[in-house]
């Protein structure tokens, strides 16, 4: 697999959750919050990878809607095991992004 | 005569091993001592071949009767042991 | 009186308990109570013949797992309920060995 050297030249960003209802809610929220994007979900059992091209946003509002309860954005940390891309967290949303496009 | 440590890189094996040889050993004896820790353990014997010794990644094998003391090796020098027809 | 070896000091540490059989098959519960002393009691709860070793022991109080009967391991007296107790066997230590004497001591049953 000689092409591995360039395998990183892609732009998928997004969270990796270690399960829980938060992960399921985040999948829904990602669909709502990124209407123009194709959201990819890969479920590996112990972790679920959610991704989109270049930027993916999840808002607190959508999480509350999906969970049907109050949600503080930083609660996401309880299940956020990893992420592709850089991260920016505010009380209202969490954003995964790349500055550069490869 | 004195104990002389080398690092054995045996053809077909996967790892370098510490082998104490003797400064009076010939290259054939060095090969035998290295073979003890590789052949029949992780490397299948090749009875129709002989084993030749060379400095790691050198192109030429050393004379079979050359002694360790004559080879100019540094302690822990890495030595390749190669199956050869002659 | 006949003391017999049931275990060694290393078998029951302070805060631990374990159950051992004597030569005639009597089960004895040995406890390492707070402070380092060892105590030996009947192995079965007087309530419903549950093995006490499966319960909880905090260094002072022994609690049966079945109905949470509790005993003071200083003297075997019931703490809850109070109208019961567990029989204590004399215990002594020789070198590394722990010896108990079960002669003439019968385990209690129910509210006795």
């Amino acid at each position, binding site marked *: 697999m000689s092409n591995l050297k360039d395998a990183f030249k892609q732009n998928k960003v997004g969270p990796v959750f270690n399960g829980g209802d938060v992960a399921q809610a985040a999948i829904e929220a990602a669909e709502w919050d990124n209407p123009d994007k194709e959201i990819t979900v890969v479920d590996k059992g112990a972790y679920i990878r959610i991704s989109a091209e270049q930027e993916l946003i999840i808002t607190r509002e959508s999480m509350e809607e999906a969970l049907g309860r109050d949600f503080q954005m930083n609660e996401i940390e309880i299940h*956020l095991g990893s992420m592709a891309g850089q991260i920016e967290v505010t009380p209202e949303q969490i954003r995964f992004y790349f500055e550069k496009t490869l | 005569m004195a104990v002389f440590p080398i690092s054995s890189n045996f053809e077909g094996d996967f*790892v370098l091993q510490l082998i104490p040889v003797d400064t009076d050993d010939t290259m054939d004896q060095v090969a035998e001592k290295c073979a003890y820790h590789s052949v029949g353990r992780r490397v299948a014997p090749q009875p129709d071949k002989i084993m030749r010794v060379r400095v790691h990644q050198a192109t030429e094998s050393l004379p079979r009767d050359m002694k360790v003391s004559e080879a100019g090796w540094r302690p822990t020098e890495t030595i390749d042991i190669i199956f050869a027809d002659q | 009186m006949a003391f017999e070896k049931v275990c060694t000091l290393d078998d029951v540490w302070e805060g631990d308990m374990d159950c051992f059989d004597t030569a005639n098959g009597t089960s004895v519960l040995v406890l390492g109570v707070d402070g380092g002393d060892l105590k030996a009691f009947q192995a079965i709860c007087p309530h419903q013949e549950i093995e006490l070793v499966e319960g909880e022991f905090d260094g002072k109080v022994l609690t049966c797992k079945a109905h949470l009967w509790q005993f003071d391991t200083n003297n075997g007296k019931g703490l809850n309920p109070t109208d019961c107790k567990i029989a204590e066997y004399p215990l002594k230590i020789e070198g590394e060995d722990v010896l108990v004497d079960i002669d003439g001591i019968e385990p209690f049953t129910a509210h006795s």
Partner: protein
Amino acid sequence: MYQIPRAEWYDLTRATNWTYSYVSEDEIFPEEMSGSRGIPIEAWETYDEPYKVSYPEYVAIQREKDAGAYSVKAALERDAYVDRADPGWISTMIAHYGAIAVNEYAASLAEARMARFSKAPGNRNMATFGTLDENRHGQIQLFFPHANIKRSHQWDWAHKAMHTNDWASVAARSFFDDIMLTRDAIAVSIMLTFGFETGFTNMQFLGLAADASEAGDHTFASLISSVQTDEARHAQQGGPSLKILIANGHKEEAQKLVDVSIWRAWKLFSVLTGPIMDYYTPLEHRSQSFKEFMVEWIIIQFERQLADLGLDAPWFWEDLTNDLDVTHHGMHLGVWYWRPTVWWNPAAGASPEDREWLEEKYPGWNDTWGKCWDVITDNINNGREDLTLPETLPYVCNMCQLPIVGTPGSGWDVKDYQLEFEGRLYHFGSEADRWCFEQDPERYKEHQNLIDHFLAGDIQPADLPGALTYMGLGPGEMGKDAHDYAWAQAFKKQAEVA
């Protein structure tokens, strides 16, 4: 939660640098501990941690995480999964805890280095939480294996391993001491939190959790994936440091720190995680191959992150991608062959079905690694166990402290990368290992590896039993084949049928 949103007061919690006058700034932040590299303190004050948390949030969230992980343990304890788990999986846990638990605790010291010596106040605060995180990881990964200690003396190594001279312990310490305990605050933020934690911990704590979950070990899966949620936060400390270094003309050095950290992490994972994923985890529970996990987490995710922060792919990137097919197979074979020298029971993972899987995942495996395993399998089946056990030591690398390995069999390609430096001959397992040494010879040159100690007479008697004693391995601790050679029996039956 406090009523006023965090964003309104958060900056005040990190407006904590002042102009020192009773002692100098250089005294408060000695260069060897701070590593500010001549970049003025005002520049470090622009450090902006992307993943913010405040104290009340931290204790609330962490309490909830612990409640989750500990309740899973309590619920599953009576289930006694460990008593019916596959021996290969038990070995996975025992190897993991020994190599990881106490080093996680040690990582809290590295976090504390940033908490005290970073010139960036935001870094200091995040590292204060990071110190707590690593305190958690050390403690929880000691508490869980302790519950199994009655089952085997090998579980004792969760605590004991790092206190010994076992070669695997030395290799683990050599890596962790190098990237976290002996570095300045900024180097720690880059080598530990960025180089290691945004990259490789994903392999051990999420990749392995996927296998654990497949294997039915929900305690372990929930534990390590919970650990990784802390890592995901405090790993974000390195990014802002990198940005400041690059903006202030130190890209080359930043790149070097990252590259050393990545290479050294890779080598450690090739001996720890590689064998676990491709050989110890029972075949039916392997969710992906080690290489596939590496591609997912390191080659694609982590390397992409590097590029986004303005760094280049490490110069050895092509070597690394090629070595994904090689190194860990050699490390596994070495660990298995020298099994008395480790504190777990290596699973050979070389049954006919295993080999079929390996051939599929690593085309050519049977013709290379398989050749060695053929000889081993025959020896087992012919009653010659003695020939499957070592009588000398493997030569270990002067950087990673691991055996120098390469491809065997028909693709034989084992190389030693030697270097004569100040009159001493050093041996390295790769070009990149040698390169790490050359970046800072003063740091490494006096280190004695296992072979050096052996040749210096520190190991007595100077034979394998002497080495086992030196390594701290007693009866009941030395590794043996996890499945008592059951995997080899299938070949015997095949031969008989034929």
